[in-house]
């Protein structure tokens, strides 16, 4: 794919990124931050490709390390974000639990 097309995609993605989060309430800053953080764990795809095409053992080792790190970023990020939002989610009935204590 030629450079300008890539650039076009980048520009559009930038605008999307800006617009989508520009009106987020401060209440959600923490989950949004960790959710976005999880998304860039997608570098895992790159790591897998490199590891899958590694010829010499050293390259393979480094590549596998990259896979481990990327997975941690991606999986961990999504899990913890969900955990946070789950709490947000169940606030109402939770309050009664609390009261029941």
């Amino acid at each position, binding site marked *: 794919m030629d450079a300008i097309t890539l650039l076009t995609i980048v520009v559009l993605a930038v605008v999307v990124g800006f617009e*989508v989060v520009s009106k*987020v*309430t401060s209440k959600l800053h923490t989950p949004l931050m960790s959710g*976005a953080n999880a*998304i860039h764990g*997608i570098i895992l795809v790159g790591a897998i490709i490199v590891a899958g095409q590694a010829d010499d053992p050293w390259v393979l080792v480094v590549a596998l390390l990259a896979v481990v790190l990327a997975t941690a970023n991606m999986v961990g990020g999504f899990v913890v974000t969900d955990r946070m939002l789950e*709490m947000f989610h169940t*606030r109402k009935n939770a309050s009664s639990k609390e009261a029941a204590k």
Partner: protein
Amino acid sequence: MSILPAEWTALLYLVAAICFILALKGLSSPRGARRGNLIGSAGAALAVITVFLSVKLENIPLILAAIAVGSAVAVPIARRVHMTQMPQLVGGFNGVGGGAAALVAVLELGHNEDPWVRLAIVFTMLVGAVSFSGSAVTVAKLQELISTRPLVFPGMRWVMTATLAASVTAGGFVIATGSPLWATVLLVLSLGVGLLLVFPVGGADVPIVISLLNAFTGIAVAASGIVLGNVLLVVAGTLVGASGTILTEVMAAAMGRGVTGILFGAFRGGSKAGSTEQSTRPVRSSSPEDVAVLLGYAQRVVIVPGYGLAVAQGQHTVAELATALEARGVDVAFGIHPVAGRMPGHMNVLLAEANVPYELLKELDEVNPEFKNTDVVLVVGANDVVNPAAKTAPGSPIYGMPILEVGQANQVVFLKRSMRPGFAGIENELLYDPKTTLLFGDAKDSLAKVLGAVKAL
């Protein structure tokens, strides 16, 4: 394992990219947040499956093993970590992502002669490595493995500049020669840049830096996408880069500061962040019992939690206190400042974890008009976010930062350990106001005492 035709691969990646867009969109609206996150993870899963089906891969068992290891490490941490440690966790996950991007770039060096591609590789290595080491420092600071105070030494800015220049030069050599040796040099130097970038940042500013490094990693991932000619990485990375940047701006604004000020403030010696000079002016301090009486017989109480509550991990106790007061028919609400706590929006998460009902959490604009008709404001481990200097003292570092105007209430009670100032390191006139009383001690203990006394009423 059969190989998908190229169109299908591209299409599936596009679907994954759309999932990420929807995820971000969902995450920025209270209702859609959780669904958004799930859509995002679905997109990620789809992408991973696609790569296995579309590329001819060796060592698949090893790769799967590596993925298993990564998950086995990350998931338990993600499940167990205290909500108060959210900033370091996000910082950590962000760092490893940046590291992964840098490593991928290094390994791609062998396969690419084109100087432009090599430029992208160098960029990915630099930014990824900075994000890695920088995040490591943020974690260390937040875990207080190292001092949360800004670490600066004379001439630091020159060292910084030199290192940056050196790494750029090394990058030039990498592009020219493509030699692994130079690549290693570049990596080491970039790691150094990351350290030097974050050391001078003061404790409470660290979350902003994490958000910034988050954007960095996004950009690095986008660049690596260009290297690998993978549109999904480009789109996803750019999305995170852009949204991360905006988010950083918004957070910094909520603190009435500029991002550059946060990064280079310590160099300029501008921010007195972490200053602890105690004041000796007289204040009215009182006992848990007195506070309990004040609260217990009030009509309307607003609790303003801050950084200190997070440090003391008193969120559960404060939630109990709120319930106890409500049981007595007191009308209780929480006034949450956007940057109260250890990271923006953090206080909402903490109180949510402590099962404080959603309705009780009021944002700055909601609660400020209500202070007039509030009997008692209980300020728990907060200081700067209620410091009138933000409105009155043009000179002060927090001037311009929107604050909770608790001064308008009839009575203000501060729970803090000493007369030490808040993060911004400035006096808070409100502490000396006749309507103010202080209860010294660790927030959690004080709250427990007050709670006991309230129950005893």
